[in-house]
């Protein structure tokens, strides 16, 4: 097998289906490491991984941190609050200062779409996008692809239904691109206020009603609803949202018998997903988290030249 052609992992659009397959296959090998009693291999010893988190994160940040540690890389994290950004330093200055310390990989989460691309233009190190604004979250899409492939045995021909605030979701965008590249069909569903103009041009079907769309889905991905959206008049309140677009047991009756329920977290229990569904037999939400470490190990390994 050849190695990774890409120095940076910026979005799903720049990966080919062969790239994605290689990442997922590598992640399967990496997952085995996390099951060992000694969860550490020396593969990336002497490599330095720096994480910049300009937005809050628990899952993604700790997942990258564990991925680096399990491969024996040294890892270091900055949050916006602990970096010089609070002193008014620009992103470029902050990163150039860190670059001067010779890291091998820079992982960035940032509220601005395109911030990782901006860094990639100005950096020697490999850049991995851990979420940029509403644009992309490629490691989330890859761990979702891994989870579905693991549970279903395939990706081609599957029907993925993504439900929620599509307009503001980088998870939705990356999964739309990623699942389509692997031959799956994608439908998006949510209130029209949360449906971005021109979404059809990304090749998806738009379903106005969750009740109508649910039966045709092999995989249902529920997105987190952010409470502050009420200020932008995107929805009247959480009660109505839960009633119309929330996934509860009653609605789940209409789904196929072997449906998978996914959520990128963090969940609002009782809003977009009912507790009985989140904790029920169809949910693979914690498997997603487990696979997240494996996918991020695979990416660190591959961008640093592993095969």
């Amino acid at each position, binding site marked *: 097998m050849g190695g990774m052609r890409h120095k940076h992992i910026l979005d799903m659009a720049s990966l080919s289906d062969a790239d994605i397959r290689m990442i997922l296959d590598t992640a399967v090998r990496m997952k085995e490491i996390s099951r060992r009693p000694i969860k550490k291999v020396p593969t990336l010893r002497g490599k330095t991984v720096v994480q910049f988190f300009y937005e809050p994160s628990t899952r993604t940040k700790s997942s990258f941190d564990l991925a680096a540690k399990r491969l024996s890389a040294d890892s270091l994290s900055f949050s916006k609050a602990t970096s010089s950004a609070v002193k008014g330093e*620009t992103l*470029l200055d902050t990163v150039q200062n860190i670059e001067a310390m010779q890291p091998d990989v820079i992982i960035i989460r*940032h509220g601005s779409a*395109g911030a990782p691309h901006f860094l990639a233009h100005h950096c020697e190190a490999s850049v991995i996008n851990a979420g940029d604004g509403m644009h*992309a979250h490629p490691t989330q899409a890859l761990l979702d692809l891994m989870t579905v492939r693991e549970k279903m045995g395939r990706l081609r021909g599957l029907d993925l239904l993504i439900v929620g605030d599509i307009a503001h979701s980088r998870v939705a965008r990356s999964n739309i691109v990623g699942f389509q590249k692997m031959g799956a069909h994608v439908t998006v569903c949510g209130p029209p206020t949360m449906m*971005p103009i*021109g979404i059809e*041009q990304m090749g998806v079907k738009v379903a106005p009603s969750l009740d109508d769309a649910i039966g045709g889905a092999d995989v249902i991905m529920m997105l987190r609803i952010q409470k502050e959206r009420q200020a932008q008049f995107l929805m009247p309140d959480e009660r109505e949202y839960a009633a119309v677009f929330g996934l509860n047991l009653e609605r789940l009756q209409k789904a196929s018998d072997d449906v998978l329920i996914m959520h990128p977290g963090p969940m609002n229990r009782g809003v977009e997903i009912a507790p009985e569904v989140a904790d029920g037999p169809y949910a693979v939400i914690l498997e997603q988290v487990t696979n997240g470490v494996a996918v991020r190990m695979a990416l660190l390994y591959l961008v640093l030249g592993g095969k």
Partner: protein
Amino acid sequence: MDLIIRGGRIIDPGHFDGEADLYINEGRIAALKPGGGTGEAEKSVKVIAARGKIVAPGLIDLHVHLREPGEEYKETIASGCRAAVAGGFTAVCAMPNTHPPNDCAQVTEFILERAQSAGAARVYPVAAISPGLAGKGLTPFYELAAAGAVAFTDDGLPVANSLLMRRALEYARGAGCPVIAHCEDPLLSADGAMNEGPTATRLGLRGIPNVAESAMVQRDIALAGLTGGKLHLAHVSTREAVDAIRIAKSQGVAVTAEAAPHHFTLDDEAVCDYDPNMKMYPPLRTAADRDAIRQGLADGTIDAIASDHAPHSSIEKQLEFDLAANGVIGLETSLPLALKLVHDGVLSLPRLVELMACHPARIIGVPCGLQTGMPADITIIDPDAVFTVSADNFRSQSRNTPFEGWTLKGRATTTIVAGRVVFALDD
């Protein structure tokens, strides 16, 4: 005689189009002699050979941010005026959103003094509609006009208050000046970084819908109809606005409009790499909007080409796309991009001269033309000169051009203000 321009194609729309010699004396046009091209001149007389070139009335850019006073690290009146004449402009309108803003006669006079000492392009100050551009009252229009202001605008900030816009149109009518409207509904454009549509959706950037512009264009046209005030619409970017202007003109409303070269050249796909030099307000729109702007320029719906020259330094531009400042520079690429429309068959050369010289002059009420006795403000254009855009060669202090590396055909070779050569390409 001080200067003779020999053998060029003189285009003075409505008056003359053909080969001729142009004689200039004491800062004014002394004579236009058709045919020409040869003949002896006295040794003391400067002669410019213009065969194969276009000789036009001096170009005027209605929409320029000179940044002085207050942001001299981006541009000064002197550097902006040097950029103007290098781009073929003999005059520019200076927008009032400086620090302090041009909302009182002292600032207007300061701008005129600085322009005078720069000795390049003429500067026509445009004053603020409201003190501090705050949208809460009227500036002293009569006093400002007496000091030299040629129009009023809160450009950069929309006049959200409809009553204030109405009063501005009425009051400006009394002062004999147009009101220049930056049409934007700030609640609809809120936080937007680019045009709303499939490209913004793919890139995950917040969108600005066309209606953020066109709704306010409709409002301001209606207010112009109500008040009889002269309304000039700045940087029109949407097909809906072009349609609204076309209808308003057919109904006799006193409305004029300008469009910027980036809007008739680029579309929102240009944002694909998150390049902050593709970010401006109003944003790059779709190809359909771009084509509607071109059509509007060709059929007379849009009266003028104006650059919306907006210098920014790397401090404002070398940032994440959504955090970067809006605006691009344009003085030194505006004419070549307009000539591209001529080469592409969208505009005739006389139409280009109307869009960049005659109409801008008429809108702000200043003289323009090559008839005997007129001030000798002249732009000589080589329509076939091919060059590559390089911001490092710009006279502007700033580098934020979306056209870096483009190969363009046609540019100004000589710029003359009041009979004095203020720019010559091969100097």
